[in-house]
């Protein structure tokens, strides 16, 4: 049995908001704003627009919350709103720059961590450089957001086999890069 003071999960919070306790929505914002902001940065490439985008996405999510049935994870549902909001904002230019392209990783004291940072960055850049821009988000969603293939399909609408092949290639590149590093 979970302790009584344990944090409610996303679905519990959604149910509370749907029941009228709208203030609980701030906890959902706190949990997911970094991810939505990251997606915004990938699409809009500057922090101001990404912040505006994040606000827009959460307002849309709040207004649509009554339609959330809990059949998917809240994060998947939210990312789908974010993805569609970005695509609609950019109209036909479904461009997305991988977060690895502009990532500002700190200098780590731990050399192993430093090497890991350099290797992962090289691997992701290599994986996305030959991909059409609209598919780059698949690699980011898998690597940086920890989203599964079926959920990436739900979010982006790309066929799952297309997603699998892009992520498979990205994982193969990561494996080779790590081997070289080693």
């Amino acid at each position, binding site marked *: 049995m979970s302790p009584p003071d344990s944090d409610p999960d996303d679905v519990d919070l959604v149910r509370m908001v749907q029941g009228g306790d709208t203030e609980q929505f701030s906890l959902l914002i706190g949990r997911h704003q970094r991810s939505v902001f990251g997606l915004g940065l990938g699409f809009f490439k500057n922090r101001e627009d990404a912040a505006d985008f994040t606000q827009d996405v959460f307002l849309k999510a709040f207004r*649509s919350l009554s339609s959330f049935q809990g059949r998917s994870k809240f994060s998947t549902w939210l990312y789908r709103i974010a993805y569609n909001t970005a695509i609609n904002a950019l109209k036909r230019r479904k461009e997305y720059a991988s977060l690895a392209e502009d990532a500002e990783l700190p200098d780590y004291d731990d050399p192993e961590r430093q090497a890991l940072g350099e290797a992962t960055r090289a691997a992701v850049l290599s994986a996305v450089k030959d991909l059409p821009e609209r598919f780059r988000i698949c690699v980011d969603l898998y690597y940086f957001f*920890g989203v599964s293939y079926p959920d990436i399909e739900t979010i982006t609408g790309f066929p799952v086999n297309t997603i699998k092949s892009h992520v498979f290639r990205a994982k193969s590149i990561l494996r080779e890069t790590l081997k070289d590093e080693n």
Partner: protein
Amino acid sequence: MDCARAMLSIIESKEDGHLPLLVRLHLSRCASCTAEYTRMRKAIDFMRSEYLPRSPDLAELIMTAIRTSPKAEIAPVSFRDWAIVGIVILAAIAIAPLGSAFSWVKKSFGSDFLLPLNVVLGLILSAYGALFIGTHLNEFVIRFKLDENSELEQP
């Protein structure tokens, strides 16, 4: 299972941490594949913890917008509850002619009561439909793509 096939299977696995039994067996007795798998896991964990940029704290700003928004109300009744009520209404209309009360009314008044009865049932159905649509306007806009900025349709 050999090392090449085990690593291919690891790369092909859909979900992290859910490896096929044969792969897990292979890892339990192959130090080099285990080391390689551990390196990949470490790299992926690193990416998930380090690459997402820090976001400014927008919670209060968004909550203020929500509190002052005229559309801050949320339909308190779920789709399932609406569907149950709709099914009950339709079932009641469908089985009403089979009941003894209906037979008695028909015997007493002939078929003259059918018109007012249908008017009443029609009003009940219209009221139910209007209430349902009125409390789910946002969902209808999204479902039938009435708004080009609809956020839940597939791109």
